[in-house]
């Protein structure tokens, strides 16, 4: 681990941006069905395919990746632990419980209403997790993620059990196993809500950094500690609810991306939030593209690909850490 922020941050940033643009282009060009960018201007069918399917799918992957990484980053600041993220610590599971409840009792509700219910459940579930995590002894940092895994696991089990009892298991699979193949025009636009959350997060970046310095430092510097915690919880919950409802759970993004960026650029969120978002978008895009090409023309869900890629990235992070600790 270097003592100073990355020696060539400029070069790294340019490379990241270039990689991102290439991935976006790839994502637009790859998929079942013939498509070439030139056709956009000459072939109305190609334009239709672009507008109905390729563009929405690419936008959805970008928004989801950016939002999930920022949600992970904020959750880590709230809990003051680098190894938690919404998809393992109960937030995403609570959101899917919310959708399940809506599907059971108000099957006709609009997607936006279901998302709202999912947000509320996610907020409750995450608040409870945070309250308990703050009681765990800070001297044992691995307790918090372990506790989160158990907590998320229990809520996830409740969702599965209820789904099994009510024969809704195949629906549940849609929310728990994230994929973009169902994303077409008219079915993903709610995801733009995550962009709003990203803007809010960037605006309050300094306050979130202060939160990560702990309660005493925050209060000593005049931060409204409780209010900032609540704001952070809302951002995390809304992002989780939106992505779970529309795409499904994607593991590891919120965990590995903030850690990788922190390693290079540090933890001052005002500076790092755009790069965490960009890297998250790039990671999810690449996994989605991989899922489309590995068994072409069949697709592997992005959550499955991310499970493998993310696990390797996580192992890399762990071994890097112990080599430098």
């Amino acid at each position, binding site marked *: *681990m270097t*003592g*100073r*922020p990355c020696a060539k941050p400029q070069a790294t940033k340019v490379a990241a941006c270039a990689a991102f643009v290439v991935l976006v282009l790839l994502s637009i060009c790859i998929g079942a069905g013939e498509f070439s960018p030139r056709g956009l201007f000459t072939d109305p069918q190609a334009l239709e395919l672009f507008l109905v399917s390729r563009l929405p799918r690419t936008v959805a992957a970008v928004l989801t990746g950016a939002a999930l990484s920022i949600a992970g980053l904020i959750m880590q600041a709230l809990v003051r632990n680098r190894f938690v993220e919404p998809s393992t610590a109960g937030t995403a599971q609570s959101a899917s419980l919310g959708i399940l409840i809506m599907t059971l009792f108000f099957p006709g509700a609009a997607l936006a209403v279901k998302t709202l219910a999912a947000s509320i459940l996610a907020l409750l579930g995450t608040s409870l997790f945070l309250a308990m995590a703050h009681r765990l002894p800070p001297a044992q940092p691995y307790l918090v993620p372990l506790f989160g895994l158990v907590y998320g696991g229990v809520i996830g089990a409740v969702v599965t059990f209820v789904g099994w009892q009510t024969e809704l298991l195949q629906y549940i699979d849609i929310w728990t196993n994230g994929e973009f193949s169902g994303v077409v025009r008219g079915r993903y636009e709610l995801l733009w809500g995550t962009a709003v959350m990203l803007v809010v997060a960037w605006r309050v*970046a*300094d*306050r979130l*950094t*202060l939160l*990560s*310095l702990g*309660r*005493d*430092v925050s*209060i*000593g*510097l*005049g*931060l*409204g*500690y409780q209010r900032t915690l609540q704001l952070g919880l809302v951002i995390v919950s809304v992002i989780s609810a939106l992505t779970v409802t529309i795409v499904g759970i994607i593991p590891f993004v919120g965990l590995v991306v903030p850690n990788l960026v*922190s*390693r290079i650029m*540090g*933890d*001052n969120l*005002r500076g790092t939030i755009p790069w965490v978002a960009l890297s998250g978008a790039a990671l999810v895009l690449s996994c989605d593209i991989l899922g489309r090409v590995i068994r072409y023309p069949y697709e592997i869900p992005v959550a499955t690909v991310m499970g493998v890629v993310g696990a390797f990235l996580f192992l890399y992070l762990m071994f890097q850490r112990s080599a430098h600790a």
Partner: protein
Amino acid sequence: MIVIENVSLSHRDTPILRDIDLSLPRGGITALVGPNGAGKSSLFSLIARLQPLQKGRITVDDMPVDTTPSRTLAQRLAILRQDGAVANRLTVREIVGFGRFPHHRGRPAAEDLALVDAALSEFDLHSLADRFIDTLSGGQRQRAIVAMTFCQGTDYLLLDEPLNNLDMFHARQLMRCLRTIADERQRTAIIVLHDINQAASYADRIVALRDGRVIADGTPDDVLTEDHLESIFGYRMKVEHMNGKPFVLHHL
């Protein structure tokens, strides 16, 4: 002026502070001394509204600490906690810069940046300014946190064992720096010290706490007598005088 009236604190029926009455006028250095567990840090956390008051009243410049907006208080009073460890990957300059947060709320003006630079110089941190704090030694880290507290630029500074981990050079420098801002800018430092001779040399007033009670309060000459020291720390130590100031041979 900080006024503490009739303040008591207990934790699950264990008394931690008992009927503390103290007033600390503006300007000067007050050393808070006492054995481990006397309640010094607890008193600080009450003054700095880090935990709720159970009984009594504390005001800072006539503002009650429990009802005044946190931000207003943060512009008057800064606290350095005893265990103020920062584990984040922030550079020293970023950490020190956060000391200005109560004034600019995230949009530092030129004046704020200048004050950060001044604090970096004051605490000998310029060569470390762009290093991540998690790569520094304990003493270097402590200096960065102290510099952040200074940078807050408040009239009142509560420093809980700020000399922890500091070498002699930097400990002396910190005490001299406190003396300067107290004398030249009428600022007020209340500082928990375990090195009683630092208190003897630099403090205007010494308040001694034991078992949650104030058991001695006065100038260094008044407090640093063999009888008082024995009642505070529980053993007898010799007190000499050097250059007109008491010098405690506490280690013999």
